[in-house]
């Protein structure tokens, strides 16, 4: 099985795995093939002054964005390590952009990350792979078996903890929903 085989239709699938950039870090940004370079840079908020830099001198955030825009034309866009490269504001921005690529441009996207939290409000399915084998797949962030393969996000761990003896709060992945629920529960 190839990675792209797990995504049959348009949409975004999350894959729990490590991701390494396939970019050659000894190259200059200007030598990376990117269609509509100026527009692409604008789309991901990359400054023009990095064009003459070597990839190895970029921040992880800049490297992530170069990796993404170099793949926009591919049939299936495979990107990864949002959690390791982007701050939370950038991650939210990129998630919105990925969702737009799906809804407006009907793209198929595979997001590889070791953090399940990256997939909140983004993917319709989470897949755990080992090499070429699918070990597990689920669409439920509260699926206990998922966490045999990945770190459990703190919010999910906390909700499970306070509900272990008695159901106090609803399952959520949104901290503001959690606060409202706690408020209702303790009042």
């Amino acid at each position, binding site marked *: 099985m190839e990675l792209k085989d797990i995504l049959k239709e348009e949409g975004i699938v999350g894959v729990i795995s490590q991701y390494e950039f396939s970019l050659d870090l000894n190259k200059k940004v200007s030598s990376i093939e990117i269609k509509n370079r100026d527009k692409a840079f604008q789309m991901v908020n990359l400054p023009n002054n990095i064009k003459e830099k070597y990839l190895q001198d970029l921040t992880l955030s800049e490297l992530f964005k170069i990796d993404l825009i170099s793949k926009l034309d591919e049939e299936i866009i495979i990107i990864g390590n949002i959690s390791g490269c982007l701050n939370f504001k950038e991650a939210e921005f990129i998630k919105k952009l990925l969702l737009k690529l799906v809804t407006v441009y009907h793209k198929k996207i595979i997001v590889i990350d070791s953090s399940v939290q990256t997939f909140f409000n983004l993917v319709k399915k989470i897949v755990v792979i080992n090499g070429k084998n699918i070990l597990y797949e689920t669409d439920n962030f509260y699926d206990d078996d998922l966490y045999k393969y990945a770190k459990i996000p703190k919010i999910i761990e906390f909700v499970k903890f306070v509900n272990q003896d008695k159901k106090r709060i609803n399952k959520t992945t949104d901290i503001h929903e959690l606060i409202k629920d706690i*408020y209702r529960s303790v009042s």
Partner: protein
Amino acid sequence: MKTSVTILSTNLNKNILKNYPHYYIIDGNFLMEDLLKYSQVIFWHSLNNKGEEEIKKIYQFLNNNQIDFINVTNNSEEALLTNYLIIYDRDKILIEGNTLEVLKEEKLLKRLGISLPFMVELSLLLKDYDLIKDIYLDYEKLEGALWN
């Protein structure tokens, strides 16, 4: 320099490592035994994929062997595992000090796009609603403060 430090930033490049010339840089996978070769190590985003318990074990190992360490990460949860925290914005130190005190600088961190550790953010929000008085890092203690 403290012996166990987290550097938290989301926009660093490796140039800042020049500020720590005596530290051996670990930027990929490593074996614990290999760490014994060095007296000072700096993890460059190389603990990101490890669980909290595994990182605690590594820190314990380093402490037991008197190896100074710095963990460079953009994951604020990892910051809670050392007592000293430095926040960088590109190549400048913006703030440093006791981890919890630094993490209370919520506005500064959010301006930089750094999220607070879940329990710190949850505690601060619950404090805003007058539901608790302190910051809790422990689930059981927070549960006790809320429901008992």
